[in-house]
């Protein structure tokens, strides 16, 4: 994130309800903005795997095991699935669920001013 980059108006905040997303175009790039618990997260809508629309698939959590080996479902709706191959990315960090240190989708700073939602890019 470059603090010197300009803010781009995306929408009125009440147009993006909690749990929702919108996809917009900023400076020629497709950007997805998610509202998760009234925090806004912006990611490139481009999958680093094979170029699919990474932010257009379902939101999901992850199935993992607790210390007793029981399956638990955690981090509900923290991941967005690329609909092409099901790669999952954390909407806050852009990092791949399977390979967090190797693959990430670019993320962008969001800002709210006077009920208006902006992305810095």
């Amino acid at each position, binding site marked *: 994130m470059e603090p010197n980059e300009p803010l781009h108006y995306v929408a009125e905040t009440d147009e993006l309800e909690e749990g929702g997303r919108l996809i917009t175009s900023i400076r020629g790039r497709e950007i997805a903005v998610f509202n998760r618990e009234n925090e806004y997260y912006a990611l490139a809508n481009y999958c680093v795997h*094979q*170029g699919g629309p990474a932010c257009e*698939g*379902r939101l*999901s959590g992850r199935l993992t095991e607790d210390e007793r080996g029981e399956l638990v479902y955690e981090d509900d709706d923290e991941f967005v*699935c*690329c*609909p092409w*191959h*099901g790669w999952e990315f954390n909407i806050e960090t852009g990092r791949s669920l399977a390979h967090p240190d190797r693959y990430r989708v670019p993320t962008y700073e969001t800002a709210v001013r006077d009920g208006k939602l902006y992305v810095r890019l």
Partner: protein
Amino acid sequence: MGENDRTITHIGEVERIVDTDFHLTEQQETILPYLEEPFDKVLNVDSGRVRGQVDGGYLGQLYPSAGHLTPTDTGKAESDDIRTPEDVERGMDLMGVDEAILTPGLNLRLGLVHHDELAAAFATAYNNWLLDAILDADRSFYGAMTVAPQEPAKAAEEIERRAGEKSIVAVQIPGGGVTPPLGRERYFPIYEAAERAGLPVMIHNAATGIVGNYPLQWRGTKRYIDVHVPYHPAEQMWHLTTLLTAGVPVRFPDLTFVMQECGIGWIPYFMRRYDNEYAKKSEDAPLLEKTPSEYLDDQFYFTSQPTEGANDPEYLCAVVRLFNGAQNLLFSSDYPHYDFDYSDTLLKALRPEFTDEEIENVYGRNAADVFAL
């Protein structure tokens, strides 16, 4: 284009892209109306419910499934429905391919249907649907007609029946879970009919459906990945080793085989492993007249998806060289399955070392040759 030129930098510069494994996604309901007698009367009952299922009945799913949670089944990957010619063209556009060999969806599991005669009837119904609803001689996609390995004589009849169709360019054997393996004598009528018809035989497994037929260890796995990683190539090796040992390429010298969807690294491994063992026990395969791997080089082709190691060109280039891939590898996307390869995936890895000629071979010319396109 000079013999050693290396000018291709982008998939758009490849002259002819033939996708050798592009799936239809027919469902049971899609093909039931195309059943012939006696099964049309048996299963196409009008009960006001799902076709083929009466009140209180359990015939909702006649194709065994393992119940694994795949990315498609959990909705994490959103696979496209490919059930009309327009669907096919949309998918081909998305993949950026010029021509495609259409292969089955649900019928990848046909070899697992327990009712042998019904399995043969499903193959006929699938081919009826394929010819009626999908294929058209004027289009740039072609069909692999499907046969049920459970009934080899009926499969041979089916091949004879469809052989004259211009848009049928291959015989598909759904190899998943087929037992005994495909080298056994009982399947020779299929190979004989395919050879006579001049059609290559394609063998494609189905990890979602191998169920109990595959060796017993399969039942010890409880996650999809444990099935998909080892068993796709392992099952192809199972079929391939028995085909070689039974001398199928010698008995049917004009027949070619296309082994689908099990990655690439195992191919040079298998060739060397079989050659190495054959040197010590050639009496197990008495019909072979050449080094076993030469038969693979001459009569067998391999589709590219899922291309493991595509992000490691050094690995992939070496592996493709090791089985003469410039002549034997056929590009495939596997679209619309969740693990499909986009058309430039393979190119990006091969470009550093492969010439334009070789890339054109892998992307289209080898397929044009195999399928007589």
